[in-house]
């Protein structure tokens, strides 16, 4: 965790120092629906989090992020009400976003892939696994001003487990604010 934060910090400083003219970095908050994929013991829940946006090249943005999610309590199965809470899924990692550059107004589509450490935990069943997983998806930004974007995206998440994986689709909305850039 400490090593990851250090790497992200260095990346953040390098990018921000080497591109002082345009808005090259920003922060964002997001939240949305957390839909489990083929998981009988979970229902849809919520997810929210924070991210940074760091311009790496003219078409690539790095997005370090942290998120906190929870799936919903399961429905009764074959007449048995499980009465357990949905699992929590927390993650931190980085996505590489192709498109969706800051500093412009209007509609800005993008695609992204990334990796993160995903922790799936359920207090009732004592289930607890953390592993490095991958994610990807599509979305679009609506540039309200050169410094402010509305961020809408769908993110497919694979969180590997002991063997196999837990999967989910996150439908997210959020805001990104950029710093500097002469605006």
């Amino acid at each position, binding site marked *: 965790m400490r090593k990851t934060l250090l790497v992200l910090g260095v990346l953040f400083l390098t990018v921000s120092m080497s591109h002082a003219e345009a808005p090259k970095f920003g922060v964002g908050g997001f939240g949305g629906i957390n839909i489990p*994929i*083929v*998981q*009988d*013991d*979970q229902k849809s829940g919520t997810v929210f989090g924070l991210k940074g946006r760091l311009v790496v*090249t*003219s*078409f*690539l943005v790095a997005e370090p992020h942290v998120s906190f999610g929870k799936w919903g309590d*399961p429905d009764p*199965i*074959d*007449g*048995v*009400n*499980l*009465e*357990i809470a949905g699992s929590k899924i927390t993650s931190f990692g980085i996505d*590489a976003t*192709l498109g969706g550059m800051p500093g412009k107004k209007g509609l800005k589509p993008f*695609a*992204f*892939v990334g990796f993160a450490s995903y922790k799936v935990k*359920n207090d*009732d*069943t*004592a*289930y607890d696994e953390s592993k490095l997983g*991958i*994610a*990807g*998806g*599509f979305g679009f930004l609506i540039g309200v001003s050169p410094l402010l974007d509305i961020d809408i995206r769908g993110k*497919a*998440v*694979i969180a590997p*487990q*002991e*063997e*196999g*994986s*837990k*999967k989910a689709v996150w439908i997210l909305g959020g805001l990104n604010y950029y710093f500097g850039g002469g605006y």
Partner: protein
Amino acid sequence: MLRQKSFLRLLAGLAIVSIVAGCIVSGTFVIVADFDFTASGDFYFHRVDITDDATWQDHKDDIDFIDAVGAEFYITSTEGTDVTFNVYVDDYTTGPDPITVPTSASKIITDFTVPNGTTKITYKQSLSILTNLERLKTLAKKGMFDYYATTTGTVGSTFVIDSAKIIVTISASK
């Protein structure tokens, strides 16, 4: 730069396709099986077999791990005092029903107290009182195992297990 862009687009596309494909071939499934007892005195025995369950049949060759194992019991006790309930599991056997708990069995419920009246042990409650989970999950992954219970009650008249279910959550992928 164009080459870089194309490569990244390809990478993004491949990652998304692999995620979507992965979603289709793996998942977490819950199996619920009814569970009844052969009782003799203060001793209960049952051969648990969930292998004929349709969900088990669909995924039996692709089980990655057992997420959780629990149970649901409805018990009626008309004993004058609290009844103490112990449960054990062991490898599946064939042949005549045993009349004692074998030494190789693992105790998964220890001295659970059942008061006079009707008691429901929910799935959630069972998760909090089960022990030796690793052995239980190993046995559950085989789909068949032997179940033993002992009580201080008098079976069939003053202490009755009205119904019971075993609930096994499996993760499977192809």
